[in-house]
């Protein structure tokens, strides 16, 4: 199909022989995880170029769903809200940030969102440390690079980072840091730390 040659190496697995009106950027994504109310959406909002959007997705299949879950105790579909934002890093590269729903019982949903992600930032409230256990367990099992980011609400760090690391029992190479989920620069720096960790692993594996 003599379509015009791309000035860029193909960023996609399925270069189509159709003629798209506009060539899309390479989409990459990162996950922002953690318990309820720890600041996931705040963190996404701090760096996203759009207001974080909320979409709905089912954790099983659309066809199986019935709208009123209260009438169906054996429901096979649950609709969850998923927040996301994005950052156009350059015209050929767009970073999506997805916040996972808070509960670990949404295992299916997490897989749906996390598959192919560059890495994850696990947001922690040090007063409710155990809320992040499912997320830490999940990314360890998945083998996905992640960093633990303690959200310093009002500059208040309840436990020193060493204590947090000890309680979470994460591997030595997993970064544990504190950040302010409201601060663009702070969230940006935290994402960079996740990516540097991911890069170190990728280089070591190469």
């Amino acid at each position, binding site marked *: 199909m003599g379509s015009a040659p791309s000035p860029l190496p193909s960023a996609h697995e399925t270069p*189509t022989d159709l003629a798209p009106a506009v060539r*899309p*950027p*390479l989409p990459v*994504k990162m996950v922002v995880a953690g318990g309820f109310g720890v600041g996931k959406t705040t963190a996404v909002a701090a760096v996203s170029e759009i207001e974080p959007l909320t979409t709905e997705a089912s954790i099983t299949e*659309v066809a199986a769903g019935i709208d009123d879950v209260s009438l169906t105790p054996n429901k096979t579909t649950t609709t969850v809200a998923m927040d*996301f934002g994005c950052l156009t890093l350059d015209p050929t590269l767009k*970073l999506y940030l997805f916040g996972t729903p808070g*509960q670990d019982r949404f295992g299916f949903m997490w897989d749906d969102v996390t598959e192919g992600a560059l890495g994850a930032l696990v947001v922690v409230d040090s007063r409710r*440390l155990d809320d992040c256990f499912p997320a830490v367990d999940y990314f360890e099992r998945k083998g996905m690079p992640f960093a633990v980011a303690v959200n310093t609400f009002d500059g208040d760090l309840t436990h020193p980072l060493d204590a947090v690391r000890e309680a979470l029992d994460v591997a030595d190479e997993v970064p544990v840091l504190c950040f302010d989920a409201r601060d663009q620069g702070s969230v940006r720096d935290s994402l960079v730390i996740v990516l540097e960790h991911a890069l170190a692993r990728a280089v070591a594996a190469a």
Partner: protein
Amino acid sequence: MTRQGGRPDPARRQEADPVGTTHGAERASAVRPFMVTEGRVAAEAGLPVETQVVATVEGLGQLGALAFERRAIVEVCGTPLSLAEVAVKLRLHLNVVRVLAGDLRASRLLAVHVPRSGTSSDIDVLRRVIDGLRAIPTSVGSRDAD
């Protein structure tokens, strides 16, 4: 307190993050999506949420021949969007968008760009994203030292 010793009580976890409290997305009916997709589900499609979709020249030319959700998808994809963004803009279930995007691709009205697998551990991609993030101008008051 350690992670192994302190696993959360499942009953308590269920209370967390009730659907719809974060932002005002209205609940979509599950019956309507079923009809839109003619009963098909997206399990086989497996398109990642960040998959980029963009209308083809052909698709934009045939807008008049399309109706309802299919037309809306082609219309909104005049510029590239992720499946997640399409779902938000059109207030559709993500899985409905997956199914319909597959249909539209088959009829050559939509180009569907699935991210290459292995991108997540691609050293060049990681470096580009790191550089891109570092280049973001941050607002006044945030630390921007390097």
